[in-house]
């Protein structure tokens, strides 16, 4: 009786896994075939003559290398910015007393739920005023500075750092920034890497901001490059799906290497949020 239960459990788990993985499998499968294969009836479930031509095309003719670099640059800069903004503020909110602290922290928490669609119009007008349209700045600067969940995450961590560590440094005559930099920052490596991954991911996959801010093709991010394929070459599924694979591979690699931090990041920002 017990064994049957286990077998059914496995079957269910595997079926769910198939539903989750099949679209990715298909991405790869089509990306390795010429366009005719996409329209073959029945479809080719395993590429008979796999080729890397689609990848060669999108990288040489359609600028995908440039798109990848753009995405990488934006996501890295924004994520590194987040680390500073959130750890600095998280440190202050956790370890310092100052007038207005509760109010300011409350405001940060209150804006966690605000969808980007609500604030994007004034933001767009601001960016236009600053002359930042068609530059990377609108993708980087807001993400660099807005750390609603990040400040929360870092504050929760820093609240639990033992007092003695801080006191010892003060006795040694360290200034506040040195305490933050030499003591708090190093002990929070795990939280920082979780935060880094989350904000890298958000910016890597971001779509609305690139869509409204970028006009020149050479500035496109991967998501925007992909969607421009849909417009121009609506039927070229082989290129589209090769492009999708290119956008997914880097993030999957990071995920497989840092699975633990990913999960931690989600549970610590999610559960208590």
């Amino acid at each position, binding site marked *: 009786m017990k064994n049957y239960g286990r077998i059914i459990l496995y079957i269910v788990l595997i079926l769910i896994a198939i539903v989750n993985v099949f679209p990715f499998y298909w991405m790869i499968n089509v990306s390795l075939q010429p366009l005719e294969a996409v329209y073959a009836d029945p479809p080719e479930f395993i590429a008979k003559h796999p080729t890397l031509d689609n990848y060669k095309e999108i990288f040489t003719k359609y600028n995908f290398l440039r798109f990848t670099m753009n995405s990488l640059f934006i996501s890295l800069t924004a994520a590194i910015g987040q680390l500073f903004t959130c750890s600095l503020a998280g440190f202050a909110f956790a370890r310092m007393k100052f007038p207005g602290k509760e109010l300011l922290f409350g405001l940060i928490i209150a804006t966690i739920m605000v969808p980007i669609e609500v604030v994007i119009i004034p933001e767009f007008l601001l960016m236009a005023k600053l002359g930042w349209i068609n530059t990377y700045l609108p993708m980087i600067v807001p993400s660099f500075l807005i750390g609603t969940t990040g400040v929360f995450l870092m504050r929760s961590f820093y609240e639990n750092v033992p007092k003695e560590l801080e006191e010892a440094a003060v006795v040694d005559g360290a200034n506040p920034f040195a305490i933050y930099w030499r003591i708090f920052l190093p002990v929070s490596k795990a939280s920082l890497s979780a935060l880094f991954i989350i904000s890298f991911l958000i910016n890597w996959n971001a779509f609305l901001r690139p869509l409204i801010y970028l006009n020149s093709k050479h500035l496109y991010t991967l998501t925007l490059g992909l969607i421009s394929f849909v417009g121009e070459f609506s039927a070229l599924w082989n290129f589209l799906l090769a492009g999708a694979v290119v956008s997914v591979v880097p993030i999957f690699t990071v995920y497989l290497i840092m699975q633990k931090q990913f999960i931690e990041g*989600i549970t610590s920002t999610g559960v208590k949020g």
Partner: protein
Amino acid sequence: MKYKLYVPYLFILLAMMGLFIFRLGPLFFAGIMSFTDWSMFGSAGFVGLENYIDFLGDETFWKIVGHTLLFSLIFVPSIAFGSLILAVLLNQGVKGTTAFRAMYFAPVITSTVAVGIVWRWIFGADVGMLNFLLRTIGFESPPSWLSDRSLSLLVVAFVFAWKRLGYYMIIYLAGLQDIPKTLYEAARIDGAGHFAIFRKITVPLITPTMFFITIMALVDSFKNFDIIYTMTRGGPGRASTTLAYYIYQHAFELFEMGAASSLSMLLLLLVGGIAVLNFYYKSHWVETQG
């Protein structure tokens, strides 16, 4: 610890710039703009409540509110129950849990654009995978999914739920692991079956997490711009246009910034209402269940 008075403000300076310039400032400004007929071309004039009155009296607007709520109505229960089922199955301590978890999580880290593109192919009317399968098992004329007025919104909501399930599964898993193992052992000794254990122990103790996830998923369900843009662009016609997409259309296709701002205020009202409801009912519902 004692620090000089100005020191904390230096530490929070960057975050406060973000908060005031990119969050509160735009919120406030969007509120002001919603009372104007601001467009990208020409000057803006104060029009009072006209934008709101126009929308509230417009049939199309209510249709779009309807789409928005229908999207949530499909998305939220799928998430609240679907991700719980995934989490409970994964929490049985089977071999390969990490591998299964990684596979269930894969859609979460994939961009909505890539997800939308692949699923567009799967739901394609003529060359799509799903319709190929349906024809194979004997359906002569399967539905055209995304180009079908009555189906496109449902398909998009389903795909979005597929993408987000793994995220909420992780949060449930954390909740499940907080349930003391001794409770399960005691129940097993008393001879309780799997289903009884699930109903009598897991469900009551996971209720706070479930409440939290429902609220989060509800807010999540309004942020559907990316998936709708990628899969249907609000179509066919307006059949899958939601509030988030309608804001984009007004602001960045019609350049009616004033009218678009009033729409975004209405979206904010919806989200804010949920937040207040959450705050108000949280203690009540969760405590009586626990």
